[in-house]
C-alpha cells in the first residue's frame, strides 16, 4: 500500500514538474520575424486593421524600452502593438464574474530584438488562457486566438506598410488610445 501511495505521489511530482517547466511555453509563444523591427510592427498593424470586419482596431503602440532609457538604462527595443475588438471584449466585460479579465485587454502582440540581432514576435496563447476561465471566456478567446494567428501572417511580396504611430510610452502608466480609438476596450 505504501509503495502504491509513494508511486502515486512521485508520479504527481513528476507531472507537476513537467507542467511547471512547460507552462511558460504553453501560455506564451515566441517566433522569429523575417523583417526588421519597425516593418514587423507595421505589418502586424496592417493585418489588424485588415480585420476590421471582426471589430479589430489599433488601440496603441507602446515602447516600454523608452521608460528604461529615460531612467538611464539600456534595453534592446521592444514595441507592443495593442489591438481590441468589441465583438470579443463585450461578452467578457458584460458579465460581472468575468469583468476582472479586462486585465488581459487590450490584446497585445510584442515585437522585440534580442542579443542575436534578430527580431522576434511574442504573443499570449489566448485559446489556452481562455480555457482556464470557463466555457464563455474559452469560446471567445478561441476566436481571438484564430484572429491573432492572422495578425502575424505575413506576405513578403507586399511592400512594407508605413508604421502607424500610436501612443508610445509604457512605464509611466499613460496608455491612451492610438489610431482607431480604444475599440471598445
Amino acid at each position, binding site marked *: 500500500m505504501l509503495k502504491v501511495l509513494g508511486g502515486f505521489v512521485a508520479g504527481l511530482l513528476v507531472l507537476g514538474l513537467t507542467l511547471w517547466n512547460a507552462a511558460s511555453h504553453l501560455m506564451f509563444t515566441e517566433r522569429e520575424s523575417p523583417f*526588421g*523591427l*519597425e*516593418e514587423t*510592427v*507595421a*505589418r502586424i498593424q496592417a493585418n489588424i486593421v485588415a480585420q476590421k470586419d471582426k471589430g479589430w482596431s489599433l488601440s496603441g503602440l507602446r515602447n516600454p524600452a523608452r521608460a*528604461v*532609457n*529615460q*531612467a*538611464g*538604462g*539600456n534595453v*534592446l*527595443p521592444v514595441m507592443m502593438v495593442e489591438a481590441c475588438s468589441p465583438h470579443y471584449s463585450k461578452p467578457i466585460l458584460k458579465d460581472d464574474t468575468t469583468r476582472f479579465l479586462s486585465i488581459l485587454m487590450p490584446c497585445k502582440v510584442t515585437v522585440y*530584438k534580442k*542579443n*542575436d*540581432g534578430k527580431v522576434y514576435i511574442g504573443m499570449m496563447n489566448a485559446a489556452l488562457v481562455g480555457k482556464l476561465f470557463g466555457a464563455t471566456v474559452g469560446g471567445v478567446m478561441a476566436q481571438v486566438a484564430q484572429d491573432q494567428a492572422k495578425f502575424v501572417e505575413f506576405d513578403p511580396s507586399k*511592400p*512594407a*506598410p*508605413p*508604421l502607424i504611430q500610436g501612443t508610445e510610452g509604457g512605464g509611466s502608466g499613460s496608455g491612451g488610445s492610438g489610431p482607431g480609438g480604444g475599440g471598445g476596450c
Partner: protein
Amino acid sequence: MRTVESEIEGEFMAKRILITLTLWLAAGLALAAEQPPAPAAAPAAVAKKVSASTADHTKFKQLQQSFGSGPEVTKACLECHTEAAKQIHRTSHWTWEFMNPENKQRLGKRNIVNNFCTAVPSNYEFCTACHIGYNWKDETFDFTSESNVDCLVCHDTTGTYRKLPGLAGHPAYQEMEFPPHSGKKVKPVDLTKVAQNVGKTSRETCGACHFYGGGGDGVKHGDMDSSLKMPGRYLDVHMDAKGLNFSCGTCHMATSHQVPGSRYMPTAVDREGAHVRGKADKTNPATCVACHGNGPHEHEPLLDTHARKIACQTCHIPQYARGNVATKTLWDWSTAGQLSPDGKPIMRKDSAGRVVYDSKKGDFRFDSHAIPTYIWFNGKVNYTLLGTPIGATGVTRINQFEGGPDDGKSMIWPVKVFHGKQPYDAQTKSLVIPHTYGGEGDDTAYWSNFDWEKAIAAGMKSVNAPYSGKFGFVETEMSWPITHMVAPKQDALACDQCHSRSGRLKDIGGIYIPGRDHNRLIDLIGFALAGLTLIGVIGHGIGRYISNRKRA
C-alpha cells in the same frame, strides 16, 4: 440705521478679527524664529550664466561689421588669431589627406574610395560641405590660402551656421531653395552674429559633419549621430547632457588645432596607462585607458584580466545606433537609375519612413540598436585604393583591419561592417570614381543623367586614372571601429553574452572562452567525476537500505 443687535455683532466681529490677527502674528514670529534668514539675492537660478572666456567677441571692432562671405570673416579672425590658419593648414581636417607611416598608403578623404558616396574627386562642390574651408570646387583649390579656412564651422555657438552641399564649403549668403527643386527655402546666415558668438567646439559643431558622414544622419559610423547632441545617460555616460556632459574635445583634446584620434590608424591597444597632468604624454589622449588606466575595475580583478585581450568598447558598448537614429548597413549602387514611367527619379521608404531606395543612389538597408561584429584588431588598417587589384567575385574589403590572437598587439574590438555594391572597372579590376554630383548643365554627372558610362569616365578623368570603358558592380565591405555611445557600466555585456556557444564572440578564433569552447578530455573527466559521484551515492544508499533490512 444701526441697531443694538448690529452694534453687538460689529463688536463681536472686531474682536474676532483682532484675535485672528494676533494669532497670525504670533505664528509668523514663531516661524520666523525657526527659519534661517532668506538669502539677500537668489543666485544662479536668475543670474545670467557667466562665460568662462576671457574675450567677449561682440566687443571686437573687427567683428562689428557686415560680412558678405565666410572668407571675409576669416580675415577678421586672423587679425587677432594670427597663427590659427597656419595651424589648420597642417591638419588632416584641412588637407583631407593622411599618409600612413607604416604601409605608406596615401589615405584621407581626397584619396580613398569608400562604399558610401564612393569618392570626393570630381564631386568637390558637394562633398566639401564638410571641409573646414571655402571654395574647394576642383583640383585647383588653393591649400595655402589662409582666408579659405572656415573658422565658423567649428566655433559657431549659435547653431545657425550651416554649410550646404553644392556650395563648395560655403553657407547660404542669400535665401535659396535647398535641396534644389524641393520648394524648401534656406535663410541666409547672419555672419556678423555668428562671428560675434564664437566659442569652443561642441558636440553640435563637430557633429555637423561627423554625425552626418555618408550623406545623412548616422549613416556612416553607427556610433555617432544627431542623438549625441543632447544625449541621455543611457546613450553615453560621458556625453550625458545632464551629467558629465563631455564635448567631443574633452577626449579629442586638440593642441594647435591638431585633433587626436584617427580612423586610418586607430589606437587599438593602449598599454601606457592614464595620462597625468604635467607629464609629457605622447600617446593618444582619446583612448579609454588615457583616463581610466589599465586596471579600471575596482574590486573586480577578473575583469581587469579580460581587459588585456578585450577592448573596453567590446563590453561597454553593447549595441550601437542606440539613440533612435538608425544607421545604414547596406548601400547597393547597382540598382540605382530606376525611374518612374514619366522618367522621373523615384524614392521608396520603409515602415519607419527611411528612404530605402533612391534613383540617384540605389538601395539602402538600415539597423538600429545594432549588435557589433567582433574582430581581432591591432590598429593596422590596409585600404583598397584606386588602382589596387580586386577580385571580380567575392567581397572586396575597402579597409582590412589587421590583427590576430597571437601577435601580442591585438585586442578584440567591436566594429560596424558596412556592406556595399559599387562600380568597378571590369577590365582593369579596380574600383572606380564615379562623377555623381554636377551643377546645372553638367551632362556627365550620374545624378543628372543616370548614365554610369559617362559618370565613371568623367570621374576617372578628373584624377587622370585609366578607365577601360567597361564597368560592373562588385560587393564591398568597410569596417568602422565602434567607440562612442558608451553605456552605463550596469549595461555592459554580461558574462553569458560571450561565455556561451552562440554568444557575441562565437566567431572569434584563437582564444579559449569557457562556456563557448569545449575540450573533450576536460568534458570527459568532468562527466566521469559526476557519474562516479552518482554511482557512489546510489551505491551508498543501496548499502544502507540492505544493512537496515538485515538489522530489522
